[in-house]
């Protein structure tokens, strides 16, 4: 077993250890054992940093991939299949290394931050335990080498998010939110599960490696439609986790959880897991599937942005911006800007975490006031927060010199290229939506900054009563807040909450990723995470024949066993064509090649569109910021008046496009009604279906009370009704008069005689 593998397993198990210790013993430990969680995460980060260093920095290899697995379930010698095992295992490649480092780092920072933020909560220890199990499952997703274990950790992440969202479970809103989140995720998961099933039913394995090898070898028994379906279904998992349209509704509500949790789970890591998963399965997605993904991403990005502009809750604005940014990533993957999307995933993780932690600091300082309308003028009180928050905001808005600029621009460039390659038309909608959302992003982030930090404090404007309920709800905070509630002294937060802000803000600067402030593609990240070659050659409409012909070779970038084959690929015409492309664009692509011409074209066109993208997006962002200034700084346009002017639109945005209402009216009410109906059906009809008509039975029981009710009710089956009626009739024959008996006797004899007589005649 490779040493890195061992290390990664250690990293995986450490947070679990912290969970186990804390969940059982936190009350017996000093400080509820938060230092344990912190220390363990520190170690974990240290190890993953080492992995990152040795994989990415020390000796970078584009096709680096080490895997290890063990038999988890052994089904023996299955008839028709042969020996069948279900394996579990971990894999480390470049992407994994980066993700490992990122997840552990952010988790560490959030742990640190929480020691300040959650101080004094009655379930303090449990909180860290939950953080531990979350980190464990997240790392599990990152490290998994097969679909099955990804699905497992997927569900576990769902669980830990459930637990953390509902951490203040006394609040009904929190309880609702956690249920909503879990269910929404489940809906996505069943799609993902079906996708997994489609693949398994063909190859009897869950392992990525073998599935891709089989796909490349063209062993997929079903039609390409099934393959596309599999892709889309797997993507549904991402729709759930990454809060893509139409399953995005849970994420904003998830803000009921503690703010650090929102930072860790609902901004940086868990929601990114969906994107990460799509990246993992990227090479088996058919073009059709990719188109669907791209459109979903675009819609999400745009919709969320439009909603964000009218929200007043500071965390909700960030939540919707998260949704919007995730939309960008998905869009990026959809259009084939693989590296850019993942790049955005990383950068976004950092600055969005920074924003959330910052908002947490603000809320903390404002004694759990979350409504931006009652904030303002905070920059004087909390300079550190202000600085970091602003920096992160710029990154999110995508201004040059920030990391956000690099990644977002790369995605948009890819989108343009994609639209070009696909032949324009409807496909231009995607970049257009992308740019438009970029503008909106700039606008609502500007609005937020202004409302929160500038102007004068508007706390006094707030109708008092509501606020008190708001935070009396989570009791411990209430006490903690009441301490200095009397004096509304807003003060900067303590160091352990400040440090993470600074670190994260620092990580949102362009220099970390790329020497060139205007081009992420020059940066190490995009060099090191190349777009892998697709394996769905047979499913690829354009160059199907060609690709199937040298399908085995495409494994080069997937299967380590045939690394040696990699150079040979340079000979393929595709590579040649691409060589030309790269040549005229005059930049080295880290030696990796695009075996899939479609991808090649897209990437090439993307690079071609690079500067167009820069121009347009800069203009858009500028527009957005200017608008924000116009509205909120110079007060040239009064927001209220505008809102009244375009009331329908305003309400539409304010009410989040009415998605909750729609779901409530259709899905939830629908299924509840169905359930009620069915259970009525069950009690009334099925219970009596066996006997035909339960009603009749009841009536019958009613008719003769002489007859013990329990019979009729009890024997809800055929005998009940028929038998008893027949009995009721027959027993009348027993008149008690002996002469009638004799008559019966004779009648019987006579009847028999007739019967035989007729039988004799015929």
């Amino acid at each position: 077993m490779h040493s890195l593998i061992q290390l990664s397993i250690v990293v995986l198990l450490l947070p679990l250890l912290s969970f186990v210790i804390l969940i059982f013993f936190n009350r017996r430990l000093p400080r509820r054992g938060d230092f344990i969680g912190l220390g363990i995460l520190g170690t974990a980060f240290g190890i993953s940093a080492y992995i990152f260093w040795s994989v990415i920095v020390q000796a970078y290899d584009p096709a680096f991939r080490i895997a290890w697995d063990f038999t988890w379930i052994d089904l023996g010698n299955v008839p028709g299949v042969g020996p069948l095992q279900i394996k579990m295992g971990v894999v480390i490649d470049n992407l994994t290394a980066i993700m490992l480092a990122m997840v552990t780092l952010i988790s560490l920072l959030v742990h640190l931050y929480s020691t300040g933020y959650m101080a004094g909560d009655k379930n303090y220890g449990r909180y860290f335990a939950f953080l531990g199990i979350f980190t464990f499952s997240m790392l599990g997703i990152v490290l998994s080498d097969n679909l099955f274990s990804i699905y497992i950790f997927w569900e576990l992440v769902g669980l830990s998010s459930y637990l953390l969202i509902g951490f203040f479970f006394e609040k009904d809103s929190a309880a609702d939110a956690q249920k909503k989140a879990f269910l929404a995720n489940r809906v996505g998961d069943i799609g993902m599960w079906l996708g997994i099933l489609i693949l398994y039913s063909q190859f009897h394995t869950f392992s990525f490696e073998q599935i891709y090898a089989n796909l490349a070898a063209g062993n997929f028994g079903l039609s390409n439609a099934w393959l596309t379906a599999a892709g889309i279904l797997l993507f549904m998992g991402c729709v759930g986790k990454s809060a893509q349209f139409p399953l995005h509704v849970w994420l904003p509500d998830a803000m009921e959880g503690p703010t650090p949790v929102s930072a860790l789970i609902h901004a940086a890591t868990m929601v990114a897991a969906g994107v990460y998963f799509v990246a993992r399965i990227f090479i088996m997605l058919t073009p059709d599937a990719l188109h669907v993904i791209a459109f979903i991403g675009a819609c999400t990005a745009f919709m969320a942005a439009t909603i964000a502009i009218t929200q007043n809750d500071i965390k909700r604005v960030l939540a919707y911006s998260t949704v919007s940014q995730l939309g960008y990533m998905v869009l990026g993957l959809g259009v084939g800007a693989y590296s850019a999307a993942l790049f955005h995933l990383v950068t976004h993780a950092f600055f969005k975490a920074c924003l959330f932690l910052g908002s947490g600091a603000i809320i903390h300082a404002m004694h759990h006031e979350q409504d931006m309308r009652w904030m303002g003028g905070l920059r004087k009180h909390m300079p550190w927060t202000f600085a970091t928050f602003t920096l992160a905001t710029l990154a999110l808005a995508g201004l040059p010199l920030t990391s956000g600029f690099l990644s977002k621009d790369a995605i948009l460039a890819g989108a343009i290229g994609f639209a070009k390659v696909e032949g324009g038309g409807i496909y231009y909608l995607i970049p257009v939506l992308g740019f438009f959302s970029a503008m909106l992003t700039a606008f609502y982030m500007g609005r937020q900054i202004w409302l929160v930090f500038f102007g004068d404090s508007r706390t006094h404007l707030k109708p008092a009563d509501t606020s008190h309920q708001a935070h009396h709800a989570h009791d411990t905070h209430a006490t903690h807040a009441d301490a200095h509630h009397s004096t509304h002294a807003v003060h900067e937060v303590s160091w352990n909450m400040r440090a993470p802000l600074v670190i994260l803000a620092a990580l949102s600067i362009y220099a970390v990723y790329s020497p060139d402030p205007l081009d992420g593609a020059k940066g190490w990240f995009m060099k090191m995470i190349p777009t892998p070659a697709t394996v769905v050659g047979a499913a690829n409409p354009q160059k199907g024949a060609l690709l199937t012909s040298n399908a085995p070779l495409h494994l080069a970038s997937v299967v380590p066993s045939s690394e040696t084959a990699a150079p040979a690929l340079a000979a393929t015409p595709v590579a040649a064509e691409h060589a030309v492309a790269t040549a005229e664009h005059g930049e080295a692509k880290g030696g990796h090649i695009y075996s899939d011409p479609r991808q090649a074209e897209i990437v090439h066109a993307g690079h071609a569109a690079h500067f167009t993208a820069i121009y347009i997006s800069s203009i858009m962002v500028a527009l957005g910021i200017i608008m924000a200034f116009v509205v909120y700084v110079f007060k040239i346009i009064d927001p209220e008046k505008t809102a009244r002017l375009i009331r329908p639109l305003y309400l539409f945005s304010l009410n989040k496009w009415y998605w909750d209402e729609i779901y409530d009216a259709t899905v939830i009410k629908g299924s509840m009604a169905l359930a009620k109906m069915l259970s009525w059906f069950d009690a009334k009809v099925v219970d009596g279906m066996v006997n035909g008509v339960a009603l009749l039975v009841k009536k019958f029981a009613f008719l003769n009370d002489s007859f013990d009710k329990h019979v009729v009710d009890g024997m809800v089956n055929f005998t009940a009704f028929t038998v008893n009626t027949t009995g009721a009739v027959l027993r009348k024959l027993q008149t008690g008069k002996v002469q009638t008996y004799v008559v019966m006797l004779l009648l019987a004899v006579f009847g028999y005689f007739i019967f035989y007589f007729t039988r004799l005649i015929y």
Partner: protein
Amino acid sequence: MFELPSGAEIQGIIATLKASVGFFIPEIYLSVLFMLLIVIDLVAKGRKNNLLAITTLVGLAGSTLFIFQQHSLPPGELFFGMYVLDEFALFFKYFFVLSGIIAVIVTMVDEQFDREVKSMGEYYALIVAMVIGMIMMASSADLLMIFLSMELVSFTGYILAGYFKRNARSSEAALKYLVYGAVSSGLMVYGFSLIYGITAQTNLIKISHELAAHGSDSLVMIFASLLVLAGFGYKIGAVPFHFWSPDVYEGSPTPITAYLSVASKAAGFALLIRFFYIAIPHGGLAVENKLGLDWVTLLIILSVSSMIYGNVVALWQKNVKRLLAYSSIAHAGYLLLGIIVMNNQATLLYLLSYFLMNFGAFYVVILIANKTGSENLEDYRGLGIKMPLAGAALTVFLISLVGLPPTVGFIGKLYIFSALLSKGSLYIGIALVGIMTSVISLYYYMLIPLNMFLRESKRPDDKSMTLAVAPQIFMTALMILTLVFGIFFAPLSDFANYSSAMFGMTLPLH
């Protein structure tokens, strides 16, 4: 016109009679016992009745010895074919003697007798007489003997049913029994006359030879055998000849009810089997046509209607005795199934199981009636707690009547249905009816445990319900037998198999 027999013939006749008497010892012994009882009654007037009871018990028990000796005798006919001795007959001899014994035991515990009647004088004598009559029913091979023995059983039955003279229901039972019985036996004997007219024979074996040889006018034959069946049907209490039974069973003294519902029913079956198997056997359609009567269909109708009617109407009964009466109608239906497929073993085994469980049930009913003074379902509420053993025993007997393992009743049902299915898919329809009706029967049988265990007593009187030791022991013994034979039924099955042989069978039993 009749020339007197010559001396030689008379010598021959006397010789035959002498020889036959040797085969007739149990009957003679029992007749002696009968007279002895009357004498004792006369002598010991006013003394304790137990004397009579004990004598009867001992006497009946003693008769088993003589019956046992008959195993060594070769099967054959005696008294000029009036009477036969074969394993089949032996089986019923044991059966009836045992049921007589149990009837006496049951009577001894029944306290109603103490209230109703002063002297038990002729009671036991009549029981013995009835035993004799039934034994003769089982062994008679001649229409005349059949008629005589049946009448003997009926008459004693009438008297016993009405034994509680001052009790209106008992007397009513007697009257109904009398009228119905008289009419149906009258019809039967009319049918006999017709058969005699057709075949000029009264001996069953000869009759069947006649029919096989010359055939007959099937219409008359059918009419005759329908009338005969009216007689038999009345004895076995199968629908539509059952009407007397519920009233009579309810009205008569409970021991007599038990006795009639088991013994005289069994006697009727013995007669039915012998008559149809010997006189007009069927082994496939050919013979039926030749003998001019497809009595299988006849019995199928009988048995199906009995199973359905008995079980369905029983659902409505509030009186436990009456409920058991209807259930006995249903059981007549099940027994007929065995006869239809001409499988003596199954029938006899079922009879044995029925013997155990029905007597057991009635025994417990009497014990309970002694304490509560009532046989109404309502008054059974909460008895299970007051007298757990009786409750358990009754439950076992009822479960056995339903036919659930591990009770002997299940074995009976198992054999009956096996007999049906061993004919392939021919009789599956009837088997289904039997199965379904037994599900129905579960409900009303379970009504009794339901009242005993699941419901609280309406008047929780603290008066103790503890039973005497002896009855408890006997009851437990019956219960254990019911269970043990339900698990190790080999002896019963062997015995039934051994007893299925009949003298003069022209066709193989299968």
